[in-house]
C-alpha cells in the first residue's frame, strides 16, 4: 500500500504538481471517461457473449445508437426539459425548506429533541405511497411530481444540515460568542460555514434523489417527462428505446453531479476535504 498511499495522500512533489496542474484536471477527466468506457464495454459484452438474451438486454452500441436517434427528436428534448424543470423546482423547494428548518431546529436543543420522533416517523414513508394523495391534489400534472420530489429529497438535506449544525467547533463558536456575535450572526458566520460541507453532501444526495423521484413519478403517475417516455417505451415493447432513455437519465445524473462538484469547489475551497487535493 505504501507507494499507493504516497501517490494518493502523501507528498506529491510540488514541482511535479505544478507541471501536473494543467494536466491534472484533464487526466482526472480522462480516468473518469476510462471508467465509463470500461462499464460500456462490459455492457456490450454481456449480451454479445449470450450471458443475457439480446432481446432483454440489448448491447450498449445498439442502445447508444437509439439514444443518438433520440437526440434528433424534439419530443425527446421536450421530455428532458419537463424532467429537468420538475427536478430543479423540486430540489430548490426541498433545499430551501430543509435549510431553513434545519438551522432552526438544529440550533435549539429543545426543538431538536421535540421533533426527533416525528422526523424519524415521516422520513421513511416512501414518496410512492403518497401517489394517491398527489394525484388527488394535483392530477397528473407536474405538481404531482413536485410533491413526491420535494418530500423525498427534503429529508436528505434536513438530516445533513442537522448533523452539520451539530458539528460546529465549540472553540470557534465560543470565540464568536465572546465577540458578541448574536445567534443570527453566529449562524451566518460560524454555523453555516461549518454545516456547509454537510449541506453540500446533502444537496448532492438530494439532487440524485430528486432526479430519481422525478423519473419515478413520471413513470408511475404518467406526468410528462422522461419517466413517462420510459414507461411508454416499456409498454410499447421498444426495449432499445427504453434502455436509451435510461442511459439518458444516467447521463443527466452524471452532468448534475459534475455541476454540483463545480459549485462545491467554488464555495468549499477552505475545507480540508477539498484542500487536501491542493496541499497534502
Amino acid at each position: 500500500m505504501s507507494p499507493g498511499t504516497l501517490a494518493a495522500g502523501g507528498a506529491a512533489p510540488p514541482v511535479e504538481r505544478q507541471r501536473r496542474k494543467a494536466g491534472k484536471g484533464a487526466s482526472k477527466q480522462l480516468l473518469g471517461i476510462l471508467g465509463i468506457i470500461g462499464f460500456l464495454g462490459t455492457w456490450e459484452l454481456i449480451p454479445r457473449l449470450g450471458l443475457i438474451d439480446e432481446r432483454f438486454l440489448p448491447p450498449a452500441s445498439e442502445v447508444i445508437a437509439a439514444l443518438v436517434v433520440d437526440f434528433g427528436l424534439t419530443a425527446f428534448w421536450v421530455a428532458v426539459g419537463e424532467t429537468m424543470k420538475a427536478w430543479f423546482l423540486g430540489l430548490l423547494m426541498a433545499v430551501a425548506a430543509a435549510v431553513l428548518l434545519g438551522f432552526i431546529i438544529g440550533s435549539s436543543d429543545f426543538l431538536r429533541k421535540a421533533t426527533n420522533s416525528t422526523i424519524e416517523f415521516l422520513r421513511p414513508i416512501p414518496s410512492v405511497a403518497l401517489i394517491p394523495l398527489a394525484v388527488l391534489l394535483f392530477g397528473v400534472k407536474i405538481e404531482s411530481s413536485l410533491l413526491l420530489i420535494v418530500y423525498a429529497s427534503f429529508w436528505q438535506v434536513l438530516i445533513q444540515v442537522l448533523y452539520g449544525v451539530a458539528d460546529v467547533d465549540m472553540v470557534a463558536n465560543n470565540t464568536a460568542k465572546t465577540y458578541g456575535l448574536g445567534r443570527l450572526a453566529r449562524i451566518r458566520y460560524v454555523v453555516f460555514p461549518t454545516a456547509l460541507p454537510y449541506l453540500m453532501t446533502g444537496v448532492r444526495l438530494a439532487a440524485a434523489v430528486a432526479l430519481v423521484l422525478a423519473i419515478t413519478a413520471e413513470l408511475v403517475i404518467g406526468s410528462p417527462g422522461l419517466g413517462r417516455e420510459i414507461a411508454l417505451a416499456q409498454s410499447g415493447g421498444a426495449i432499445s428505446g427504453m434502455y436509451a432513455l435510461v442511459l439518458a437519465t444516467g447521463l443527466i445524473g452524471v452532468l448534475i453531479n459534475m455541476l454540483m462538484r463545480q459549485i462545491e469547489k467554488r464555495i468549499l475551497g477552505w475545507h480540508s476535504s477539498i484542500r487536501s487535493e491542493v496541499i497534502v
Partner: protein
Amino acid sequence: MQPDATEANTEATLSVRGLKKVYQTDGGDVEAVRNLTFDLRAGELACLVGPSGSGKTTLLKCISGLMAPTEGEVLLDGKRVTGPPKKMAVVFQEYGRSLFPWMRVRDNVELPLKNQGVPKGERDRLVDDALEAVGLSHVPRSYPWQLSGGMQQRVAIARAIAYQPEVLLMDEPFAAVDAQTRADLEDLIRVVWKKLGVTVLFVTHDIDESVYLGERVIILSSSPTVIQEDIQIDLPADRDQLNTRSLPRFTELRHHVYEQIQLAKKGHRPAAATSGGAGTE
C-alpha cells in the same frame, strides 16, 4: 480580609467569588478548581500564573461566561455573568481552532467589528492598525491555515485588540511566537492597556513575562486549585524591555514568583486557602 473584599467589590470591574469547578467524566469527577476569590479593578492589568493543569483555562472560561461554575459566581460590573458579556474579548489557548478557516486573515479580524456595526472607514482603520501592530500587515489575504503557528496566534491577538474591548482575557497568547516578537507584543499589550484603559487578565507560563507585564500577579496552586498568592508588582508604570528587566526589584519579584510556583508544584497550599477550603477537605 473581609472588609477589604467588600470594599474592593464596589469598585471592582470583575469579581470572582468562591468559584469551584468540577468536571464530570466517565472516569469519575475531576475537581479542577476548588475555591477562587479575587477582584480586578477597572483598568487593572493582572497576570495569572500557575502549574500546567491548575485550571487557568477553566477559570477564563468561567469568567467569559462560556462555562457555568459548579459553585460560586463571577460578577462583571456587579452583574452576575451567565453568558458571554458584551465588550469582552478572549484570546484562546487553542488559537489554531479559534480562527475561522473559511475566512481570510483580514475578514477574521474584521468580523466582530462588522457584526457590531462599526462603520466601514473606522473598521478598516482599526483592522489595519491591529494587523500592523502584530506585524502581519503583509498577509491580510491569506487563510489562517496558510500561516505559521505564531502568525495564527498573532491574528487572534489582532482580532482582540481591534475589537477594543473593556475586558481582555488572554490565555498564553504568546506561546507560539519568537522571543523578539514576544517582547514587542508585550509592549503592545501595555500600550493598548494604557491607551484604552482596558481591564486585562493575562495567563502566562513565563514568570519574567508576568512580572514585566502585570501590575499584579495572581499565582494559582496546583489542582484542585486555590490562590497561592496575590502579589502587587511595584515596578514603575513606564516599562521597557532593557531597563525594567535589569532593575534589582524586577529580579526580586521574579524570584519570589518563581519560588511560589515551585511550592505550588510541590503541593504546598497557602494556610488561608487551606482553612478557607477546610469544609471541603
